[in-house]
Structures are given as structure tokens and as C-alpha cells.
């Protein structure tokens, strides 16, 4: 490029060609940026939440008892949100079991928060399926089966993540594995990682409930 800077008198056709070439390179660069953005998105790491970020998507869904709920159902009270699906052999039952144990141990404090399980596979996880599934866990946990559109709204609102992954037969889901904590005012209040000690998780839930 430097060599060309000195050339003052360039035939018009050449200038046009150069403009075209620059334009094309710009397009290539743009495509590169686009691909990088796509890669970031599809690499599937959920966006990082800022402290006190507002987690307040508008949505509606059906819970495991067939009741219609909306974002309003959960407003004004601390809540803990977990995204999963019932065709999940390991991470989901483990997390729900850990939440169950924590809620059992919190006793009265358990009533100060709502634990919400959102299926990322509403195609298979109907409210009836969720009802049977949730009978194995703490009775206060609310399980939601939203429409695909509402699911996307919830996932986006909580900066969570899910994707459908085809298998040789059927499909499986990859999903956020963190429990996302939301304060009573609707702001982000931390996460619980499955790898954390049970006492740590319980303490976080207790603190969340007490506000």
C-alpha cells in the first residue's frame, strides 16, 4: 500500500479499480468481524452479568400444576433460577437435588425465596411431564414450561444460554448450569456453581432470602 501513496496521476480506470479493491477488502474485513461475532455467540458462553444488572424479562409460561404464570408472579421476592431439562441424566437431577437439600436445611428461611426451574426443552417437557419429575424434589420449586418464544425471552433476560444438539438419534440440550440468583428488586445477586460445596450454596440461598 505504501508504494502507491506517491502516485499522484493515476488513470481514472485504475482509481476505480483501486476503489473497488478497497471496497472488496472492506467487505472481507466486515465478514471477518461478523464471523468472529458469530463464533463468540455460538461458542455458547453465556454473557457475563454485571453486579446489580436488572433481570426482568417479560414472559408467560405454564407451571407444573398447569397454572399460567408471568414475570409478575415472581416479582418482589428473591428467587433462584435454574435452566435444564428432564432428558438430562446428570447435571440437572444433581442440581435439583442440591437445591432440594438446601431448601430442606433452610427450614423457615426457604419460604423467603422462590426456586424456579425453567425447562429449555419445552418440546418434550410439558407441564404434566414436569409435574411428575418435580415430585422427586422440594415441593416449593416451581417448574416452568414456556413456549419457544417465551423461553428465549427468559433466557435472554437472565443472560442464560441453551442450544439444541442433534444426536445420532434424537437430540440433547446444552444449557447454563449455574443457578442464577435474583434479589427481590429484580437485580442480579450472584450465582451458584454446581462445583461449590453444599454449605456455600445453602449460605448463598439463605443470604438471598434474608435480603
Amino acid at each position, binding site marked *: 500500500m505504501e508504494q502507491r501513496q506517491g502516485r499522484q496521476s493515476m488513470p481514472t480506470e485504475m482509481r476505480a479499480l483501486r476503489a473497488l479493491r478497497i471496497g472488496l477488502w472492506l467487505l472481507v474485513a466486515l465478514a471477518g468481524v461478523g464471523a468472529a461475532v458469530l463464533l463468540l455467540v455460538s461458542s*455458547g*458462553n*453465556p454473557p457475563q452479568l454485571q453486579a446489580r444488572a436488572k433481570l426482568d424479562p417479560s414472559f408467560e409460561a405454564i407451571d407444573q400444576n398447569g397454572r399460567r404464570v408471568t414475570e409478575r408472579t415472581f416479582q418482589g421476592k428473591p428467587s433462584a433460577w435454574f435452566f435444564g431439562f*428432564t*432428558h*438430562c*441424566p*446428570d*447435571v440437572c*437431577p*444433581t442440581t*435439583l*437435588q*442440591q437445591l*432440594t*437439600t438446601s431448601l430442606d436445611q433452610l427450614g423457615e428461611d426457604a419460604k423467603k425465596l422462590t426456586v424456579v426451574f425453567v425447562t429449555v426443552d419445552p418440546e418434550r417437557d410439558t407441564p404434566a*411431564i414436569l409435574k*411428575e*419429575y*418435580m*415430585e*422427586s*424434589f422440594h415441593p416449593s420449586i416451581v417448574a416452568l414450561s414456556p413456549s419457544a418464544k417465551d423461553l428465549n425471552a427468559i433466557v435472554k433476560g437472565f443472560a442464560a*444460554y441453551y442450544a439444541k*444438539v442433534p*444426536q*445420532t*438419534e*434424537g437430540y*440433547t440440550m*446444552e*444449557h*447454563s*448450569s*449455574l443457578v442464577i440468583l435474583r434479589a427481590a428488586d429484580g437485580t442480579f445477586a450472584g*450465582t451458584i*456453581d*454446581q*462445583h*461449590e*460445596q*453444599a454449605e456455600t450454596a445453602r449460605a448463598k440461598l439463605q443470604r438471598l432470602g434474608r435480603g
Partner: protein
Amino acid sequence: MRGLFLAGAFLLAAPALAHDFQAGELVIVHPTSRATPGGAKVGAGYLTIRNTTSSDDRLVRIESAVADRIQVHASTNENGVARMREMANGLPLPANSEVTLKAGGDHIMFVDLKQPLKAGDKIAATLVFEHAGQVEVTFNVEPLGGAKAGASEHAH
């Protein structure tokens, strides 16, 4: 590969309490599963396979009447995302090494269970290896909360 009845003879000789099995030179340690939540169509299996020989082997197939399909899944839970994918070529068992499938990591997946798995159940299954032949094993089903203690203890 499938006609090796030698493995069955080892099973009869294996003490029940140890809950270990042997296929040729391979030792299969303590296969377990976990009770499934209500209505769940999938279950998990865990075990350790010790290959003390100087040649690689591979767990190519698992058969059991308990589920339509049984797969080995590579599973990760990193950066707050849980992912799993089928190990389509089976589970590699490198020479002189021990491979462990455990809660929170790679696992055996029972897909489309014919019946729920309850604590105390024993799942009969056949493990088929590339070189070591095949062996009948039982997966002991532990309580839903039981395997969890192990999962939360592992340090990361």
C-alpha cells in the same frame, strides 16, 4: 469378539461384596447408577475400568434390557455451561491406565428407560470390549441424593 464366555466364568468367581468384574485382563470397578426422578426417560451409569495391560482397548458397546439405547457421553460443565456428546467410537481404554466415569463428568447414559430406576435396583448389563471380549455386570442403583455427595466433594 462376542463369543468369549471366559468373561462369564470370571463373574461367577468374583466376590459379590467387592462389586468388581473382570473381562480378560480388564477390571471393572463398582458400576453404579442413580435413582431417576419421576417419569425421567434417561439415567446415568458410572464405573471405573482399569487396564493394566500394555495394549489399548476400548469399550465399544453396552447392552441392557433396561433402556432402548445405551451410550457413553463425554460431558463437560465449564464456564457455566453443561454440554454432553456421544462418544460414537466408544470409550478408549489406554494401556496401563484407569478410566473413571463419575457424576459431574463423563458418564454412561441409559436412553429411553423401559422403567424408572429405583434405589436398590440392580441393572444387568453386558459390556463389550474391542479386545477383552464381553462381561456381564450389574449397576447398583443408588439414591438420587446419594451420588450427589460425591459430586459436590470433587475439587475443581
